[in-house]
């Protein structure tokens, strides 16, 4: 593949990940290559929860990268996935986000597919009154839906355009598997609802945001003041061997200032809620961590902040915008008090999040700021220039690790 370089563009210094050129966030050729290599390449992309597909015939429409796909259960109850594109003329045939069906029929010429994606019906295939029709050698078996590889692990479904990928747990790596199975321990999940944002920034800025614990102690008054996530707390940043996945793990601290908090202008010791029921967290997992933010290449953030649990699926639209699609969940065996607690804490997150709202706003401002300057670069030197795990959160190592893997995958 030809390198993506234009004469006007500053090259990305070989193998450096402490600098990231801004053309990476604006260039349409880069975006097109990302769709091919990152999202439709050798990766397990998050597509949903098994709780969303409870029975044979259940289906869900979503996207991988900017490409619409459908995930369903066939008659035998097995998970299947296809590109949401009719094999005839390209129609996005599945128009509902979720539902139950026995077959998929394209609305245009009613080509009909079974739940394994096989083409089962072509109206007028033999013509009408001996006229027209498809050629005699037209073989429906050659015109099924484009299939995806699909796998599920403890209630979470991933799909890939590549059919010879390693197993999902091998893909995760050991540390990430531990934290994945901390939330997804095999218990039945209960979907609590959805929230969707169209954020006007490049999709990578979302990953950078969640791989960057440094900002949380400074930007988010809510997190800082209530000690939900702060640089002076016991915490770790962990990656897998490739650097593509990341983990921010931390333990809740107290609402008080100390020598360690002197740079946190946003720490407000006197800040109190008029109704403290909003933040009434209880411990529910096997270890003492109170927040684990897991980023899984290429499109998923798993959020466990106190008792609010959510999948945040990153759905790029174009270089300067992405949809962030949130699925909030709990467990089927949650009691009413726990469900209420999760619903209250959801105020911190999503489209009007007391915390995450800061992030969607700052991502737009980042895009606004960098877009006119493709030849300038971001500086990622907090915590050094390496990509090693750390026992603190004053670091941008997880962003650097992400770009190490990104450069390899993108051949950039």
């Amino acid at each position: 593949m030809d390198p993506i370089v234009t004469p006007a563009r500053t090259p990305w210094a070989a193998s450096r990940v402490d600098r990231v050129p801004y053309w990476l966030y604006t260039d349409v050729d880069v975006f097109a290559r990302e769709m091919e290599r990152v999202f439709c390449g050798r990766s397990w992309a998050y597509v949903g929860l098994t709780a969303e597909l409870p029975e044979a015939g259940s289906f869900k429409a979503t996207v991988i990268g900017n490409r619409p796909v459908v995930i369903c259960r066939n008659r035998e109850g097995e998970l299947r996935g296809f590109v949401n594109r009719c094999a005839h003329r390209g129609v996005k045939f599945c128009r509902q986000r979720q539902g139950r069906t026995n077959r998929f029929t394209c609305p245009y010429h009613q080509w009909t597919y079974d739940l394994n994606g096989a083409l089962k019906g072509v109206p007028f295939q033999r013509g009408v009154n001996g006229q027209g029709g498809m050629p005699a050698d037209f073989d429906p078996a050659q015109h099924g839906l484009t299939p995806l590889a699909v796998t599920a692990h403890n209630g979470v479904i991933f799909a890939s355009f590549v059919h010879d990928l390693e197993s999902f747990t091998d893909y995760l790596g050991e540390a990430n598997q531990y934290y994945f199975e901390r939330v997804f321990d095999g218990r039945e999940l209960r979907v609590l609802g959805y929230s969707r944002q169209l954020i006007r920034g490049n999709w990578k800025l979302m990953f950078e945001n969640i791989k960057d614990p440094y900002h949380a102690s400074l930007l988010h008054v809510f997190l800082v003041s209530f000690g939900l996530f702060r640089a002076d707390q016991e915490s770790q940043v962990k990656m897998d061997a490739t650097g593509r996945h990341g983990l921010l793990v931390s333990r809740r601290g107290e609402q008080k200032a100390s020598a360690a908090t002197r740079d946190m202008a946003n720490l407000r010791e006197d800040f109190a809620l008029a109704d403290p029921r909003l933040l009434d967290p209880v411990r529910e997992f096997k270890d003492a961590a109170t927040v684990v933010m897991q980023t899984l290449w290429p499109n998923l953030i798993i959020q466990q902040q106190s008792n609010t649990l959510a999948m945040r699926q990153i759905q790029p639209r174009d270089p300067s915008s992405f949809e962030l699609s949130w699925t909030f969940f709990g467990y089927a065996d949650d009691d009413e008090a726990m469900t209420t607690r999760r619903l209250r804490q959801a105020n911190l997150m999503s489209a009007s999040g007391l915390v995450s709202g800061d992030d969607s706003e700052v991502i737009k401002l980042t895009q606004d700021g960098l877009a006119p300057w493709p030849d300038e670069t971001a500086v990622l030197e907090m915590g050094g220039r390496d990509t090693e795990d750390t026992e603190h959160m004053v670091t941008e190592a997880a962003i650097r690790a992400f770009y190490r893997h990104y450069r390899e995958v993108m051949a950039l």
Partner: protein
Amino acid sequence: MSGDLDRAVLFYELHDHYARYAASLDDGPLEQWPDFFTEECRYEIIPRDNFELGFPVAVMRCESRGMLADRVTAVLETMMFEPRYLRHHITDLRIESASAAGAETRANFSIIEVLPDELPRIAMVGHYRDRLERSADGQWRFREKLAIFDSVLVANTIVVPV
């Protein structure tokens, strides 16, 4: 409640309540917004698909005037966002049922949002399903207010309540 005049007065009072409610969000002071609700209340901004599918997650959920006040504090003091002007347009008020002490209403809303360097845009469209009570001071207040929004894909961030 009987007679055309009573109905007209009721409609006027509720209409006035909604107009002042919208003004508190658009022109402030935002600190007065919780006073449009009863002490114990239910306020939710919920995507229409969640509402129709029976999923309880709201993008904003308050269960008391205290939680509403906390949201106001967040908007005024703790959240970081691009400055903006909003204009809430509340239309098509329907009184579903009413008595001297309470009313159930529905109304449509659309919110025009103006960011400093951009043209106005429709930030949100939807409808309210509300229950109001007449308090001891004679004022109508929301006991329950559900803002169910059709525009489920939110443009960046909802900062100010609906």
